[in-house]
């Protein structure tokens, strides 16, 4: 040997660097997904999450051997596959040193509404009673069924008003498919005049301009939460050079919100007509539907509804592309949703450019919420005035309020925009349950802030709550009573934000976690919490981090006495 070295030789490799590809695993993957050598489109990057779903569904988890094969299949770097697989809560990446999860997954919703209904003790009981070799019990964010809290999902089957006994009974039946949904089929919808607007648009009987004027007059605004005037959004997208896309955000994840599910389960075709009209309005190359994975029953409904449309010749096969979320609240943010549609972790993009300028596949993209487009056929049929004239207290239009928490009749209540909480509880919710007195309410889900009972007379709508440091967002109203623990509510909300933060920017990634830890303490330093809130609101990239401090600031502003009564010492 000629060369002597100072270190012992230790790194001989009998293989190329990094994890080896197992040809048999790749073959198995091809049997599952199709052969990408014959159909190269199967290796398109934007299909990554879809492929991960197929693997997760088939194997119950994602092994590294499978992920390695998938990286080869898609010609993606391992790191890129891993980033996406580990971002989403519904993928179980199992390392070589970890055991695969048990066959049955029980998810207990831990959103505020379910927590008010006793989800925490339910989870404890389920965990204590489960055989860990067979069942794992996980907490999960809002399942969009807050009107029937507490909610538990066994496999894909949801259990409403869940009790330990009811959940264990479902576990024992072995039926984990989504519960059946009765929905309006295409024939019924067409008989009632459905798809006439779409036909008229396509036939040139309705011009885009007229439709946009109607939406403007109706004051239709983005009902996903931002409230941006719909006609204006169309206008911006249309101003950009094609090709363009249309993407519908059905990632309804704001805790307390279930209105999109409500409409989709009943009238999917009314929604699809609105979506197709929107796509037509911007001359979209394709219409993408991004549906949250927490709505597995709807996944089937929409698949079937789209199949009906295609069979009826109303839409070209493949024009509507269904995509499944994978357990990430942040994908309700439109640019995060677009990242997710492209098969990536759902990390919001910086603006500018706006998605209307550079969205899906870097093309101008119209992103609308489910409910927003759902109203389009109705507004056209009944006239702009019908919609606009419905408001109260000087507001215009209708709002679908998802009401949960301490009311007698929770649910989606279609009410005039501008209705006050007091009116809502009285007129639509049959009042508060016995023994409960209104103490506080969340006007816009987890992120919309918190208001005291003394402010139950403010009109609820876009633009009306700013002065209170709140917003209506997706109109998820969670009602709290004097029986409820305010710190528990605050930590519940911050734990949610910290869990769902994409982790991209410092104020949100670190700030939500630090805020949570501070709130868990017995003494709250108001100055520290306010300073941290300021940083998060001013410097976070997207609405998640910007809005996360809202409930904390609300409590510091309006609930000092109540906190003191609940033994939370607020200093400063």
């Amino acid at each position: 040997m000629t060369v002597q070295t100072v270190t012992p030789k230790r790194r001989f490799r009998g293989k190329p660097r990094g994890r080896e590809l197992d040809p048999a695993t790749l073959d198995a993957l091809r049997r599952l997904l199709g052969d990408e050598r014959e159909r190269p489109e199967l290796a398109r990057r934007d299909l990554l999450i879809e492929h991960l779903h197929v693997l997760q569904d088939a194997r119950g988890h994602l092994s590294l051997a499978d992920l390695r094969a998938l990286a080869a299949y898609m010609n993606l770097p391992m790191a890129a596959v891993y980033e996406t697989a580990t971002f989403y809560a519904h993928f179980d990446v199992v390392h070589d040193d970890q055991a695969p999860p048990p066959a049955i997954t029980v998810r207990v919703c831990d959103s505020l509404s379910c927590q008010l209904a006793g989800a925490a003790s339910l989870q404890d009981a389920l965990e204590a009673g489960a055989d860990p070799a067979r069942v794992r019990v996980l907490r999960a964010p809002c399942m969009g069924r807050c009107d029937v809290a507490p909610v538990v999902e066994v496999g894909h089957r949801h259990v409403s008003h869940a009790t330990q006994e009811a959940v264990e009974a479902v576990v024992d039946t072995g039926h984990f498919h989504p519960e059946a949904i009765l929905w309006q089929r295409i024939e019924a919808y067409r008989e009632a005049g459905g798809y006439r607007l779409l036909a008229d648009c396509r036939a040139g009987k309705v011009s885009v301009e007229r439709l946009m004027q109607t939406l403007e007059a109706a004051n239709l605004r983005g009902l996903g939460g931002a409230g941006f005037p719909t006609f204006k959004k169309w206008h911006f997208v249309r101003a950009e050079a094609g090709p363009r896309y249309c993407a519908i955000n059905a990632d309804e994840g704001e805790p307390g919100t279930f209105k999109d599910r409500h409409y989709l389960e009943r009238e999917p075709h009314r929604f699809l007509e609105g979506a197709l009209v929107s796509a037509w309005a911007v001359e979209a190359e394709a219409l993408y539907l991004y549906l949250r994975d927490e709505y597995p029953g709807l996944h089937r409904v929409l698949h079937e509804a789209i199949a009906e449309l295609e069979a009826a010749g109303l839409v070209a096969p493949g024009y509507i592309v269904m995509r499944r979320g994978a357990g990430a609240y942040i994908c309700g943010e439109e640019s995060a949703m677009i990242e997710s549609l492209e098969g990536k972790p759902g990390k919001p993009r910086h603006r500018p450019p706006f998605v209307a300028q550079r969205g899906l596949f870097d093309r101008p993209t119209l992103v609308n919420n489910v409910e927003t487009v759902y109203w389009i056929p109705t507004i056209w049929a009944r006239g702009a005035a019908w919609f606009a004239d419905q408001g109260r207290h000087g507001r215009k239009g209708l709002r679908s309020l998802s009401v949960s928490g301490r009311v007698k009749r929770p649910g989606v209540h279609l009410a005039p925009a501008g209705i006050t909480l007091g009116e809502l509880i009285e007129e639509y919710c049959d009042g508060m349950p016995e023994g409960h007195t209104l103490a506080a309410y969340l006007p816009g889900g987890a992120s919309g802030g918190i208001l005291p009972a003394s402010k139950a007379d403010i009109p609820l709508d876009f633009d009306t709550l700013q002065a209170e440091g709140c917003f209506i967002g997706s109109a998820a109203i969670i009602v709290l009573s004097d029986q409820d623990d305010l710190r528990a509510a605050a930590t519940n909300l911050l734990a949610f934000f910290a869990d769902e933060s994409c982790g991209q920017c410092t104020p949100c990634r670190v700030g939500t976690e630090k805020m949570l830890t501070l709130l868990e303490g017995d003494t709250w330093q108001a100055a520290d919490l306010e300073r941290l809130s300021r940083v998060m609101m001013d410097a976070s990239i997207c609405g998640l981090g910007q809005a996360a401090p809202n409930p904390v600031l609300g409590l510091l502003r309006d609930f000092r006495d109540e906190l003191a009564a609940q033994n939370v010492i607020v200093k400063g």
Partner: protein
Amino acid sequence: MTTHQGVNESFTLTLDGVDVSAQPGETLWQVAKRAGETIPHLCFKDAYGYRADGNCRACMVEVEGERALAASCLREARPGMVVKSASSERARTAREGVMELLVADQPDREAGPDRSSHFWDMADQLAIDVDAVRQWLPRREEREAPTVHHVPDRAASPVHDRSHSAMAVNLDACIECNLCVRACREVQVNDVIGLANRGAASKIVFDFDDPMGDSTCVACGECVQACPTGALMPATLVDEVGRGDSAAADRQVDSVCPYCGVGCQLTYHIKDEEILHVSGRDGPSNHNRLCVKGRFGFDYPRHPSRLTTPLIRKPGVPKGLDPAFDPAARTTHFREASWDEALDLAAKGLVDLKAAHGPDALAGFGSAKCSNEEAWLFQKLVRTGFGSNHVDHCTRLCHASSVAALMECIGSGAVTASFMQALEADVVILTGCNPAVNHPVAATFFKQAAKQGTRIIIIDPRGQALGAYAHQTLRFTPGADVALFNAMLNVIVTEELYDEAYIREHTEGFEALKEHVRDLTPEAMAESCGVPAEAIREVAREYANAERAMIFWGMGISQHVHGTDNARCLISLALACGHTGRPGTGLHPLRGQNNVQGASDAGMIPMVLPDYQPVGDAQVRAAFEELWATSLEERPGLTVVEIMDAIAAGTIKGMYILGENPAMSDPDLAHARASLARLEHLVVQDLFVTETAQFADVILPASAWPEKDGSVTNTNRQVQLGRQAMPLPGEARPDWWIIQEIARRFGLAWDYDHPRAVFAEMTRGMPSLDHITWERLEREQSVTYPCPADDAPGADVVFSEAFPTASGKAKFSPTLPLPPDEPVDRDYPTVLTTGRQLEHWHTGSMTRRARVLDDLEPEAVASLAPGELRRLGLAPGESVSITTRRGEITLRTRVDPGMAEGMVFVPFCYAEAAANVLTNPALDPYGKIPEFKYAACRLAPAAVEALI
């Protein structure tokens, strides 16, 4: 939404109440910087090629009319914008708040991996009081419950990862700014690092959160250079308990990399007169990037076996490779001597042989590892001292055939365009080259081009890492290159895809070529190429129809008996399609060694004087006779392999070998080594007792690259300066000084006092160096030749108007497919091909003595396709014997799905299993280059297993 600004029309905005000007495309951060304020930044790296990501939020500014603050690193300046930075209380709170959030979870500065990190600089700039932060912000580890529920803890994923010998991973200092991800994914395009999970569980990972040392990491170290916190650090800067300091060096010296022909500019960080670590500089060919060799292969000059005194062979010790010899304990075979004694003895042996047998008894091998000045002096010594043209170097073994074809067809042996031009090309053909391994930083340009939409076409028998970025890959049968390229030419001719106007104005001989390739259809060639005819057609069309296309090639093209024909074909392709002389077009043989271009330019070639001027040309000779005040031999000298043959034949009896290692690098080593042993007098000048030096009578301890000044010329024709960064050890001397001392003992009155004096002389003999002076190189760091004026940049793309031929036109040179010299047969059914590895360079004399490189690739290895291994009944790592008609070696195997079946690849840097024992010395008739890329061999499981 977009403003209607002229391309370079500056505009005004208000920053902190003052009107400032900005250029379109500038960010607010850049505008502020020009205005004198460096806004705090962590995730933004103010360096070439780094995209601003705006995630750390340390650089927030207030933009009038906007609800939230904006990240200045990302936000483009617009006319009339009103921006508050230093004057914004909100911005200050946000910046401080962000730093405080990050500081809260940092290890203590003195206990952390980099007490001088950019992160702590920024904390200082914002006057963050660490103790106060820890008062109010709870640390992450205080949390008991998980924050992000779906990410389970993993015991096997430690915070401190020391699995890589070059880099220390300290994730406790990580701030998830993803600069390393951008470094790995976007800058070097190695695609190893990712940012996994989400929220507070976000984590930097290698592949699938594997230990760095087990991942696909190629150790380019870009991440280490980018990391602002020390979470990723050069291992040499961190102690056993994880404390480190990136500012530990005493001083920095700017230089260039001593390895491949890319010519990366780098900075040596020196502590206690030794190299502590290396960082990349913003040179034109590397833009701060380096590869594993350049960044981590720096410690060879201080290896224990480094020569520090002249050595003289002990009486009675036979010349040859003694397996018991230890280069670190060399006095078993040699005795130490003074310089005077060694130089006298070295020179006398040569002088005496010349006196007794005439000038043809002597020959010299210089080296492309040395500087331009050393190459110049060496060939001048041979020509004016030895009195012959028997001077050659490793260019003969790498691109001699390419140069022959280029000289013949376009009148110039250098590249027509830099590899940076790939970024301008629509189509790039890479053939017979493996840039990710052999020209890693050039490969970054190809990968970036591919990401921008350039269609990369790889034509090679072996698969390679760049395949992941390729639009199309043609893996053809080894040795069928000429057939394949002719079939492409046939498509271009028959489908009339050629550029008629270009051919008319710039070329001659196209009609003959047309006629020549008429029958060489893809269908006729497909079988011998092992590629479907339609694939050949597609690739030909893709190349011909591109607006701008380039061809890059390496030794897979040149190292064949038909190497010159291969290169002729590639030149014909470019000429037929008009793909030279414009941005994004050109012909580029990727040069192998740091100075193979410069050493060739300087005339270290037996048939030409400097600048490729034929020695047989009396006019040329006369000019140099005047310059050097001596007469010159008119007969061309012998080439590398011919010299070895001449020794065997007894005509050459004495040699002076500077930095070359023919006892490893020549084909058919048994023959080459026998020749070396036969020499009556051999003087070797090197850093170590190389395999060749073991045959020497006198060994002269020379200078390593970081120990001397000198210029080098890279593959892009960029002349760059290397600077002395550390002292010579012991009695070692600069090479130029040693050559001069030998010259003086040949009676030559040389009196150079520094390489700059040599460079001045070179500029008088080499028109290629017009307008390039030593002072200019010192000032500008890099000057491309040809250069039109003292104050103008050189030409990145040449031959736009005319070629440097008599007619000004380029020539088509038709070729016919020829089989390899030694086709496979029943007895030797497998193709042996040889080359380099990422970690090891040339014969390994330097890289195998670099700690990190040796650790990463410690021993000889044969790469085989999985099926081939199965056929042999071998598991990966088990040993195989490879036998050719010339010899046998035994080494361990590596399974490599990129290998074709029926083929084995062996790197030639391992003395213990020297691939060149096996290779075929048959020469290309024009370039005189051996067929290193094809020998018929036989594989068998090795009888005795050397187990781990």
